[in-house]
């Protein structure tokens, strides 16, 4: 384990990440989405903190809690509006940079986007109702309105995460690894199950299909086909290139007479008919919600919102105490409350919500688990080469219930398990970069938890914190945001080379007439500059 090897591994990891299609556009999209995410977490967390404070006010009639609740509402209103603006930018960014993805999303998994609109309207109406009506309403109506705001915010998160979860693990995905069987790439896995409409099913020769790893079954009058992602991805790629059936891999699975009949039909049309039929079997509204990683993702995201919000409130009060502004006694009380909430929510986030998320990833995205845990000897692995493989065994126990269960090996994932001749993807493995991002995230989260727990104990024991401790608490929101940022980066980077796993990559999703790298960089700088001034404005007008 020489320093040169470590540096070489890091360089290799970055080169691998950049080798996937459209790195510049992915980077600009990442800025937009991460910025939106930084703000969204407050939208999910601040109303909950306000609700807790309002309930405490209802119980104690202590004005302190009412003031705290009002401050959270004020903060929420401004971050919500900022979030709406960054969300609009992200939405248009999606349409402009990745129009083919938006088209596919609009066709087959539109419902979460559609339903999210009502979540957004719920938020808009009740947030402003609460804000502008605060002084005219009693405690109970305020609690009702705050609960509706929480409903809107969490419902919104759940819908957007349904789309994102589908992108990570689409409905019908059969992974290529279980601890019992080991890797199943040789049998054509991972596969995606689709339903074949009768007019296409009759044209398929099951024996020819089998030669390509496609398993066709018939049950209860429905024809179901499990297709290797090598095939599903190829079909999407062929559709994007305007191929006809006779030019397609489909020609290899059709009966000869059917090929004569369908040969000139476009692959896009056949693919459309298969996907619409699959939607019909599942129910078009529920299809995207059946992604197996959806619910754990929702829990983990909401948990993150609460953690970040609690740390930010604690950090803000620590800053107040450091600056000597406001009533020190009240600030200390608010600090105690928010820090306790931060530590408790971080513990739940790590031990329960994060664990559930990890279980889903272990089961349905084993390649990503292998990359995250650095189960490799090809690259420098923090887990293997620095921590003596202990985390691997721990993960094996948490994921599969046994310390000795084997984890999926990154080195055993075939580089070409999803690719085909002419495909824009050379390396099908998720970028090993996620290992370094993930371990940085986990390390920072552990350090944050331990440090803030110690400070909380100190605060309860001695009733106050020293200047150095307050500086640590004031800096804690930045650390927490970095942890969360890295978590989202692991999810997004870990899905590469795919945009939607097994279906298409950024190469097919991108706008063929988009701007050049320099223009994209300029847009990125412009958006970041606007965000910097906004951050200053929020701090100056809201907090001070």
């Amino acid at each position: 384990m020489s320093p040169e090897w470590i540096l070489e591994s890091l360089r290799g990891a970055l080169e691998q990440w950049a080798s996937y299609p459209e790195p510049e556009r992915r980077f600009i999209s990442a800025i937009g989405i991460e910025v939106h995410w930084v703000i969204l977490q407050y939208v999910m967390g601040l109303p909950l903190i306000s609700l807790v404070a309002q309930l405490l006010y209802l119980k104690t009639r202590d004005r302190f809690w009412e003031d705290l609740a009002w401050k959270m509402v004020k903060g929420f209103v401004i971050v919500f509006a900022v979030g709406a603006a960054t969300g609009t930018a992200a939405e248009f960014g999606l349409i402009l940079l990745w129009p083919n993805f938006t088209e596919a999303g609009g066709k087959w998994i539109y419902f979460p986007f559609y339903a999210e609109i009502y979540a957004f309207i719920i938020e808009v109406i009740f947030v402003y109702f609460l804000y502008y009506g605060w002084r005219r309403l009693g405690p109970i109506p305020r609690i009702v309105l705050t609960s509706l705001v929480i409903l809107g915010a969490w419902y919104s998160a759940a819908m957007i995460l349904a789309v994102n979860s589908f992108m990570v693990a689409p409905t019908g995905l059969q992974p290529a690894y279980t601890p019992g069987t080991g890797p199943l790439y040789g049998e054509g896995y991972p596969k995606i199950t689709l339903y074949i409409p009768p007019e296409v099913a009759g044209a398929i020769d099951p024996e020819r299909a089998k030669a390509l790893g496609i398993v066709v079954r018939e049950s209860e009058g429905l024809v179901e086909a499990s297709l290797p992602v090598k095939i599903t991805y190829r079909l999407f790629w062929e559709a994007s290139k305007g191929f006809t059936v006779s030019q397609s891999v489909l020609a290899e699975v059709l009966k000869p007479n059917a090929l004569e009949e369908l040969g000139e039909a476009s692959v896009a049309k056949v693919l459309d008919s298969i996907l619409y039929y699959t939607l019909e079997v599942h129910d078009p509204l529920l299809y995207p919600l059946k992604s197996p990683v959806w619910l754990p993702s929702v829990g983990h995201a909401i948990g993150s919102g609460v953690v970040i919000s609690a740390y930010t409130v604690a950090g803000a009060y620590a800053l107040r105490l450091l600056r000597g502004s406001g009533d020190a006694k009240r600030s200390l009380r608010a600090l105690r409350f928010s820090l306790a909430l931060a530590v408790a929510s971080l513990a739940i986030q790590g031990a329960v919500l994060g664990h559930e998320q990890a279980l889903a990833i272990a089961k349905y995205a084993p390649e990503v688990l292998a990359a995250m845990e650095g189960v490799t000897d090809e690259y420098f692995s923090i887990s293997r080469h620095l921590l003596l493989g202990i985390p691997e065994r721990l993960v094996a126990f948490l994921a599969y219930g046994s310390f000795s269960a084997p984890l999926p090996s990154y080195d055993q994932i075939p580089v070409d398990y999803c690719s085909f001749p002419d495909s824009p993807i050379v390396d099908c493995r998720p970028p090993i970069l996620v290992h370094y991002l993930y371990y940085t995230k986990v390390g920072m989260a552990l350090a944050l938890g331990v440090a803030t727990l110690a400070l909380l104990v100190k605060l309860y024991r001695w009733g106050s914190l020293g200047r150095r401790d307050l500086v640590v608490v004031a800096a804690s929101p930045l650390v927490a945001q970095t942890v969360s940022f890295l978590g989202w980066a692991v999810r997004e980077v870990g899905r590469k080379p795919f945009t939607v796993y097994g279906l298409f990559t950024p190469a097919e999703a991108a706008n063929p007439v988009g701007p050049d790298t320099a223009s994209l960089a300029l847009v990125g700088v412009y958006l970041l500059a606007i965000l910097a001034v906004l951050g200053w404005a929020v701090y100056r007008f809201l907090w001070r």
Partner: protein
Amino acid sequence: MEGFERLAVFWLAFSFGIHIVLVNLGIGVSVIAPMLKAYSRRAGRPELGEEAYRLLRFYAATYALGGVFGTAFTVYLLSFYPSFVSLLGKMALYNFALAIAMIALHFLSLTVYYYGWGRLGDRVHDAFGALLALSALLIPLGFRSVFAQLNTLEGVEILAGRVVRVDVVEAVLGNPTLPPLYIKSVAASLALTTVAAAAWASLKGRYEIARMYLKPALAFLTLVALAGAWYGWSLRTVEYKFNNIFGGLGLGGEPQLDLSWLLALKVLLWIAQVSAIAYAIARGPRRGSKALLVAAGAALVTVPAGEMLNAFSQYPYFIADRSLVREVLAQLPPSEAEALERALTLLEVNAATRSWVLHIYTLIATTVLLAAAALYAYTTLISRKT
């Protein structure tokens, strides 16, 4: 057209109708409030500064509501007509990019200007006010240039049915229907805002403030009429649309969908506004307060009526210039031409949205939420009870 297509078009028109009224008020306020505030200081008339703040407070309270209905429109369009949205993303990439860049700037300037009121130095505050006005004027330039492209495409090279090149300047600014459409839109925003603000002020007994708005309102309404006529003239090369608007009045050819009645309604609403304002100028805002309410009501209907006229006069086509579309389709093999033609009309919604559950869900959610919005508006803007 079948039931699901009718419903899709209804939801699109409905969300856009609400969005456009709130957005027009927002543009008007963003231009007028900073000017009023700066003038109030120079003229030593603090009541004008208070009026500017009132306008701004209204905008801050309704900004997100306007935005959310705009988002709803985009999502409906994406859900019902995904292939068209994909095409639009390629054809109008730079037009949208201008609008987004300005939305970000507008939001920043609104936040700083609103929350910085009384907290920032005059010079800095006025600078953000100027940014607020400028960005409010440039957002519609981006979006209207998209509408102009939907009249007739400029600066977009299409080969074998695929967009292969976009000339940024031509696509964003080179469309002959853009200048009148843009000027008309901005003038309409200012007319609506001044008329509504005058009516609101007179209703609240602030007659001097109401009086201040009347002559500018008349001037903006005159500009709307002139730019409207220019826009109509600019559409003469887009036969299908021109005939649908003017054909029923004996101008142009036979209309496929006669919407001359909507044009006539718009003209009548315009006349009602002009007459009511002229009456209020002559009799004073106190005696003319009822007339001002009529003018405000007419103004609130005129804006969506104008938008519906512009949109439905090219119905069922997303791109009104039929000869251009025919040229593009002729380059393609029949099966691809058929698919592209389908994507360019509103006649066939995304098959996955053919669900009654979806529309019942939309109806219930929209009704409940609009009722809540009305309660919100009543509680915060009208009711004085605590």
